[in-house]
């Protein structure tokens, strides 16, 4: 591997100081399952890696006044094991389980997955459907960014040089909201998503409200299918309406053709998976299909 220096941060302020000191040649090292691969492949050549894995506070999963805070360093395995995540946001557990394989999930972190900002990232759709926000440490203090605004372009996020993603927060209002995550890959294990989707909704007085549809691998960044969400609002749930939402979501998306699948095939997946995810979210809301 190409030579670099490693500094092991012991706490958050030290991590920020190191990132500031070595900007713009520093990269944050967490699980390493993406960063080290990119360094080995020559896609990135940071001169300094700031290893944040010793910073225990960044891996904490806890309920706060704001909601469920999942530290950026929480591994996908830790999320799967977490009783808090399981109770309040089980769709995040489902999504974590589809990432890589056991070895990747034991090293790879939620924050690391989010900052890759690849369109297919599996950690993204459920937080989108739950109105989550990112808690970011900047040299001059903390800032919060809605996850819907976090991704700017493929492999680009709102994080500025010297900033550190600290946690993903699922707001209190979204805890326990019926949600479903579905992913379609070419295999069950270690497959990138051809399409992934998370849908959430609530039922009040027999009609749907707060419907959210988060989609991955269907556009340059993760997207919400806003038009599809809109037709569900204040309507009684029905298979026909979910089918229509699936068709609209497929129209809203801008999938590409690559060696994994054609755009047309992805559109068909969006249609079917969106419909299924909505039906599953409804079932979890206690409604009938």
């Amino acid at each position: 591997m190409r030579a670099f220096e490693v500094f092991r941060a012991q706490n958050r302020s030290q991590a920020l100081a190191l990132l500031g000191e070595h900007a713009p040649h520093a990269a944050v090292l967490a699980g390493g399952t993406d960063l080290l691969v990119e360094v080995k492949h020559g896609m990135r050549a940071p001169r300094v890696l700031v290893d944040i894995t010793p910073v225990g506070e960044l891996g904490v999963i806890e309920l706060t006044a704001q909601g469920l805070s999942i530290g950026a360093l929480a591994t996908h395995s830790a999320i799967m094991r977490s009783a808090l995540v399981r109770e309040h946001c089980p769709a995040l557990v489902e999504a974590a389980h589809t990432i890589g394989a056991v070895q990747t999930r034991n090293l790879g972190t939620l924050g690391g997955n989010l900052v890759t900002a690849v369109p297919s990232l599996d950690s993204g759709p459920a937080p989108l459907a739950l109105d989550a926000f990112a808690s970011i440490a900047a040299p001059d203090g903390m800032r919060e960014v809605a996850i819907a605004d976090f991704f700017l372009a493929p492999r680009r996020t709102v994080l500025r040089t010297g900033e550190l993603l600290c946690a993903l927060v699922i707001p209190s209002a979204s805890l326990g909201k019926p949600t479903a995550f579905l992913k379609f890959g070419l295999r069950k294990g270690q497959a990138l998503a051809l399409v992934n989707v998370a849908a959430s909704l609530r039922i009040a007085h027999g009609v749907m409200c707060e419907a959210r549809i988060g989609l991955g691998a269907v556009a340059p960044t993760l997207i919400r299918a806003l038009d599809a969400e809109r037709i569900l609002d204040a309507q009684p749930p029905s298979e026909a309406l979910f089918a229509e939402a699936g068709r609209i979501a497929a129209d809203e998306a801008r999938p590409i053709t690559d060696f994994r699948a054609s755009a047309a095939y992805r559109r068909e997946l969006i249609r079917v998976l969106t419909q299924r995810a909505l039906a599953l979210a409804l079932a979890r809301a206690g409604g009938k299909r």
Partner: protein
Amino acid sequence: MSEITLVVNGEQRALSVAAETTLLELLRAQCNLTGAKLGCDVGDCGACTVIVDGEAVNACLMLAVQADGRNVVTIEGLAGRARLHPLQEAFEACGSLQCGFCGPGMILSAKALLDAAPDPSAAEIRDALAGNLCRCTGYTKLIEAVQAAGETIRAAATGPRRAAGQE
């Protein structure tokens, strides 16, 4: 160079490592433990799987400095003086290895699974081994071996207690 100390197969070691040295390179070149294999070197094949603090990880994707203060188990740490580990015995008995290149990683992934869940379903075994690619034996015999080893381990765990109760 950084100085690190870690426990490898129960033995405390103090080593000097370069920043870009992976745990896999450390184990193979500096500890002379060549059981963990260099396959893809990017976390896809699982041939380098070792157990760090109880969890299966790809040693090619962990820097050696990140293993400072941690407990590492490699395939060389499984067999006792008198006999092989039940997983190793089961892999032999079931004919689960042909070329054997995936074996150390496969067995360590299986060990991490059985340590956490001694009686896994076939689906759980498949999930646990999904990050270990085998290109010649095929997976059926691997799954059979993990099930057989689980039985042996469970019998050993309950056997002596029952015997003691009968005395």
